[in-house]
């Protein structure tokens, strides 16, 4: 993996001089869980490097690499073809196109207002409920209607595995979703997932949009090669932008089928709902305070959630973003989190930027 990073870095540095779109997102993040010790391990620098190119003949390439002290990950490796101005087909590893937050933001923390992601759309390795990446095929298209536009996405590919060792993105102890490794396809045990998404922007010039999606994922576990979890999710989302105010909200309905490891055997077939809302107020070009609330409903004894102990079932966040210089921001936020058998407060402070 180190070799891949070095190779990618050299490609990126030479590409920065060529006729391609190149973006680098450096970040330094400090976290502190109330009651825990604070050490230098709580301060994590990272950088996300992005490169894309549209060739005149219609070919497309996209690479994204995330590098931190203990993580080196090829986030996106995509080769595509632009059939016309509104239809693209991709092959490779890409972001699973579900919901609003996950399709709008990923790494590149500078682009999102807050530091953290809502719990239910957190990265698979950090306690998120839905696999973050797929490796396979992706179709993206749009249909303009007056000043508005409909956008659709269809995806099918290898999905995540539920492992007890933790995935990337800073995953620690406990189970989490580990992505298919495009550079090491024999690692792990992965099955297929499918996602369809539809979104509508009433005015292409504005960021307001509404939409819905459905995803079906077959998730292998590392407990037993034959064990597999079936995850079906349908969700709705909205991003409402009016002058200085922005509201983001998503609600997902989950149906899970999880093999039981207790004496009774069989599998648990269960349903639950998760949602969040985030409000942001851009007081001026520099200061943006924000709050968010996320919750999980009807999830008592759900075995899928019990397998993901890093998932906070309820969270309240308050924070502020200060754009103190061109393409650089400082953010501070506090989140009160409730887990299945625990609760704590988490402080986050970060500096994020984009270059060039």
């Amino acid at each position, binding site marked *: 993996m180190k070799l891949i990073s070095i190779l990618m870095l050299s490609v990126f540095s030479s590409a920065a001089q060529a006729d391609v*779109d190149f*973006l680098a997102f450096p970040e330094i993040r400090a976290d502190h869980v109330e009651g825990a010790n604070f050490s230098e391990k709580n301060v994590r620098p990272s950088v996300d490097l*992005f490169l*894309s*190119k*549209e060739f005149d003949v219609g070919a*497309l*390439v*996209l690479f994204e690499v995330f590098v931190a002290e203990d993580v080196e990950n090829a986030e996106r490796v*995509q080769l*595509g073809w632009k059939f016309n*101005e*509104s239809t*693209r087909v991709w092959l490779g590893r890409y972001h699973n196109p579900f919901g609003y937050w996950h*399709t*709008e933001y990923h790494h*590149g923390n500078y*682009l999102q207002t807050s530091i953290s992601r809502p719990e239910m759309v957190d990265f698979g390795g950090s306690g998120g409920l839905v696999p973050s990446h797929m490796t396979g095929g992706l179709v*993206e298209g749009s249909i303009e209607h007056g*000043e508005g536009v409909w956008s659709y996405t269809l995806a099918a590919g290898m999905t995540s595995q539920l492992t007890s060792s933790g995935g990337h993105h800073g995953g620690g102890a406990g189970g989490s979703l580990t992505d298919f490794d495009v550079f090491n396809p024999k690692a792990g045990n992965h099955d297929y997932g499918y996602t369809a998404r539809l979104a509508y922007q009433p005015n*292409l*010039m504005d*960021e307001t949009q509404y939409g819905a999606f459905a995803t079906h994922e077959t998730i292998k576990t590392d407990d037993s090669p034959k064990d597999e979890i079936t995850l079906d999710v349908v969700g709705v989302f909205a991003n409402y932008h009016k002058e200085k105010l922005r509201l983001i909200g998503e609600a997902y309905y989950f149906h899970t089928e999880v093999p039981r490891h207790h004496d009774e055997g069989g599998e648990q077939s269960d349903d639950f709902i998760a949602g969040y809302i985030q409000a942001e107020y851009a007081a001026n*070009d520099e200061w943006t305070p924000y709050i968010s609330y996320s919750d999980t409903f009807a999830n008592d004894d759900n075995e899928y959630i019990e397998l993901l102990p890093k998932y906070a079932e309820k969270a309240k966040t308050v924070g502020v973003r200060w*754009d103190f210089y*061109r*393409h650089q921001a400082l953010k501070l936020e506090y989140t009160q989190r409730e887990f299945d058998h625990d609760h704590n407060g988490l402080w986050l402070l970060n500096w994020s930027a*984009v270059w060039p």
Partner: protein
Amino acid sequence: MVTQLECCLAVIVSRTPLLIFITLVLGLSMPSMASARELVVVSSKSTDYLPLSRFELRKLFLGYPVEQNGKVISAIRNTSDERAYKVFLQKLIRLSAKNYERRLMSKTFKTGAANVPTADSLDALIDELQQTDSTLSFMWMDEVESQPGVKVIEFIGDDTTN
């Protein structure tokens, strides 16, 4: 005769404050009117575009494709003149520089679609426009007048408003 002269003087004296005010207003406004520069959308002289709406122009500079007669039109951001860029943002894009650039970056980062390129000198911009017959940009009207290979497509606004 004396009475008429006295009457005229009385009128002038009584209206002196108003005359001073009018003179001051005209005096203050004339220089800025004289220096107001018009910002215009331009293309190579070889293009034959149909008129583009304000919505289509905004689309172009936000990185969305606009097609005319089967040809895809693209845009270049002129970053050679800070004032021109500011007027472009105020009058056409209607976003702050921070929000505009963040939107462009987000779109590229999310979709892999090419960003709207920039030209940081007028010479580079003119070269780019003349190399292709499907690219638009913006510049001051007085700059267009000194560039024989470039023509005006649309009026954006002038720099009188802050």
